[in-house]
């Protein structure tokens, strides 16, 4: 009896552990799915700054010089919080966050603009390309 007790307790605990592990694996598998889903929903866009790619994996992406900016441009001509990219109504939009030097889309100074694939953003002296990414996060 004593032996069975220990054994079955151990089995129940082990089964729960394995189950927890499997569910964590499921969560990891679904991470890919929801990433794909996000890409499908938002177009899977990236911001390319020189060689670096910044995937837009969140519906608000801040461009600026500050350490907490999502796309950080260490360039004195960029304001701390320079501009924000937001996704709503099926499209990405860029909005100037009262920056000093302004935001240019394809060479035009804008306060607020809907972006399309291949648009070139000028923020301070940096050039960012808004384009469709590959398989990415």
């Amino acid at each position, binding site marked *: 009896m004593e032996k069975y007790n220990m054994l079955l307790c151990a089995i129940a605990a082990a089964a729960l552990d394995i189950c927890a592990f499997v569910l964590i694996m499921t969560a990891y598998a679904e991470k890919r799915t929801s990433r794909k889903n996000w890409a499908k929903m938002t177009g899977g866009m990236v911001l390319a700054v020189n060689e670096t790619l910044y995937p837009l*994996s*969140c519906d*608000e*992406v*801040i461009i600026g010089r500050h350490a*907490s*900016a*999502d796309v950080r441009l260490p360039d004195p001509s960029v304001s701390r919080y320079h501009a924000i990219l937001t996704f709503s109504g099926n499209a990405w939009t860029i909005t100037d966050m009262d920056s000093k030097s302004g935001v240019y889309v394809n060479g035009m100074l804008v306060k607020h603009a809907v972006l399309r694939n291949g648009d070139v953003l000028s923020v301070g002296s940096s050039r960012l390309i808004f384009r469709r990414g590959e398989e990415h996060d």
Partner: protein
Amino acid sequence: MKSTKRSQHLISLTILAFIAGMAVLVVKLRNESPKYMMYAEEHSLGNVYDRNGDILFDGSGENAFPDGYLTDVGNLIGDDEGQMSNTLVAKNIDLLNNYSFNDGLVEKNGEAAIYTTLDHKANRTVYDIYGGHDGCAVAYNYKTGEILLCTSIPNLDVTKGYDDLASFPNGTLISKPMFRTVPGSTQKVSTLISALEIMGADKLFSKSFNCSGVYYNLSGKEIDCHNIYGHGTQNVQQALENSCNPWFAQLIEDSDMPLSKVKKEYTKLGYALNGADDTYIDIDGIECETASTTLNDPTEFATQWGCIGQGDTLVSPIQLMMWQSAIANGTGKMTMPHLISRVTSVKGKDSYTAETEFSDSLFSTDTAATMKQMLLTNGADHYNSILGYNVGIKSGTAQVDNGDKENSLLVGFVDDSSFPIAFCVVLEDRNSTPLTSEQIAKTLLDALKADN
């Protein structure tokens, strides 16, 4: 992105803090569960043994003992009935519990036990020599701190229960060596240690005072000597051996002995001065009282009387014995006494093994050496032939009950590295019995020697 990352950091932090709390909880549960189990309806207790495997407390209640077999240790070892709270069993009952978190409750054949340092046979012999006369005796190995003997009269047989509690004589339920009593002239050891620390051996030995049987101190009060004809002019060694009160009263009044420094030395020795909070020595959980006295003005009767060992002065026998250890081992540090040598868990594994510990330094090694020599000389002059051992010793006679009764005390140590015993013997109301404290001390040493 960074903003969502921040929230993830916050979540991780919250979860980690929670996990840390759970870890603390699990450790606490694992360690404290034997204590919790003492409050459960069902539990099974192990035994307490003496150093030779003799049972001192029967947790299972299955063993039979001869009548009064455990009477000599009754109020020291105690039981789980809750009548006595300051006993070895009461303070360590969770160690005796046949339960551990890993093994659960073991109802039969659990091996939880406490092995004490006591020598039951010797303890019994000393208990018997008192013949029912009130008093107490305690002895320990001043090198290791093992309490070998600790008995107190009156005492009780815990296996008999507490039905006739009302008829128990006063003091039955307390182990007297743990409680303060009037030290009498054994207090002079503390005063001499202080004097040695303050003025050094050379100066102290150069002091000589006259005793004419009675001394009128600077405030005009009378300090009597037990020798009404007086001791004449004495140095410190003679005064110690004569236990001369007038000499010590004059020492306290001496300008080389400022009271502020005496107070400092007394405090170092562990006295609670002038109503300060009492301190306790922890002996495996058992609270043992230390010492207290009043020191106000060096010319005042009460202060002088306090330094001589009467008045407000109270010291526990164990404290007196521990000061002897600091002298005997020559370091000025007391060997801390312990009663538990090891504890076994429910599975029989050692869960605790005692280690020898020492106090902070109470006085210098020079003072220890001088004091040791003075006490040994006293022993050689008066006691070695009686006791049959090379002892350093100081006797004391304490007046209690407003002088109606006199207690006889003897504190000392054996100067023998193969038999390092320090002891304290108290014989209450010495005038009502032919027994002497020397006889008890001899019995004590012989009994320990026989088992050594």
